[in-house]
């Protein structure tokens, strides 16, 4: 069961709205390496994960990603409030506005709606953890690219925090992979799937 905590993980306080910046950052909400995919990926991988420690990591990182969906959404909301129609047109935000007004809809910067195809749940310990390691790196690159494209210090501060979390999560998934390998067959880690093939798994 989930219980909502009425706080952001890290403060979001943007003084100047800017729809052009919002158009770029929206990719980290609903793009291919965005937070919505991350949260769903880890929380859905938990059920077939046979190692308690790894399930703990998937749970806790997945829950934090739910908080990041909220943080990125807060950024998008604050960047798009109090805009005039002229400002919306000038920023090229009209193509989003026509469908969603200033609602926060998960899509990529290029306008592709969020798709669960971005989320891999293979039900195989090593396939899933390798996917997670790659996903954290891809999200880190996206945040790096966002930092190359924007310059508002209020926004950059939040983006830097989120970028840092991708690195920490990458390290924790590295722990998870090591735990899984320690419990596997050192002659051939990938010769069987400990999430399905019961034999050979060490306690």
């Amino acid at each position, binding site marked *: 069961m989930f219980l909502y905590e009425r706080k952001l993980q890290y403060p979001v306080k943007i003084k100047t709205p800017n729809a052009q910046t919002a158009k770029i950052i929206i990719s980290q909400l609903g793009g291919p390496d965005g937070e919505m995919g991350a949260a769903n990926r880890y929380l859905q991988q*938990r059920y077939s994960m046979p190692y308690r420690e790894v399930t703990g990591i998937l*749970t806790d990182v997945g829950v934090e990603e739910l908080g990041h969906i909220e943080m990125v959404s807060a950024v998008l909301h604050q960047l798009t409030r109090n805009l005039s129609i002229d400002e919306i047109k000038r920023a090229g935000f009209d193509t989003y506005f026509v469908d969603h007004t200033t609602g926060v809809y998960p899509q990529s910067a290029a306008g592709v709606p969020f798709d669960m195809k971005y989320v891999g749940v293979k039900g195989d310990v090593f396939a899933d953890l390798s996917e997670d390691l790659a996903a954290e790196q891809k999200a880190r690159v996206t945040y790096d690219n966002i930092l190359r494209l924007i310059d508002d210090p209020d926004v950059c501060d939040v983006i830097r925090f989120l970028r840092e979390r991708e690195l920490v999560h990458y390290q924790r998934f590295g722990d998870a992979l090591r735990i899984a390998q320690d419990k596997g067959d050192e002659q051939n880690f990938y010769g069987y799937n400990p999430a399905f093939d019961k034999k050979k798994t060490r306690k």
Partner: protein
Amino acid sequence: MKQDMSESRAMREIQKEAFAVYEAALYLDGHPDDRRALRYYAEHEARRAEAVAHYEKKYGPMTVCGVRSADRWTWVDDPWPWEYDSTDVSALSGQKL
């Protein structure tokens, strides 16, 4: 830790009280001035908090903020809630809400 009958009963108590709290919350969201509902909420929230404190002291954490051990991170010790084992003794208790 293997689930036993009293663990299952303590969990049932939390589920019962937390459900009442949540049901009251959904209603109160739309009726924030309803004092009768507020009293119902307060009564069950107190019982929920008590049930959680009792459970965590005896069986382990309900949330990452509920670990009470100084020598082990017990968050990863107990079965995860979706790992129902039909051979478990708690399954035979047949408790109803």
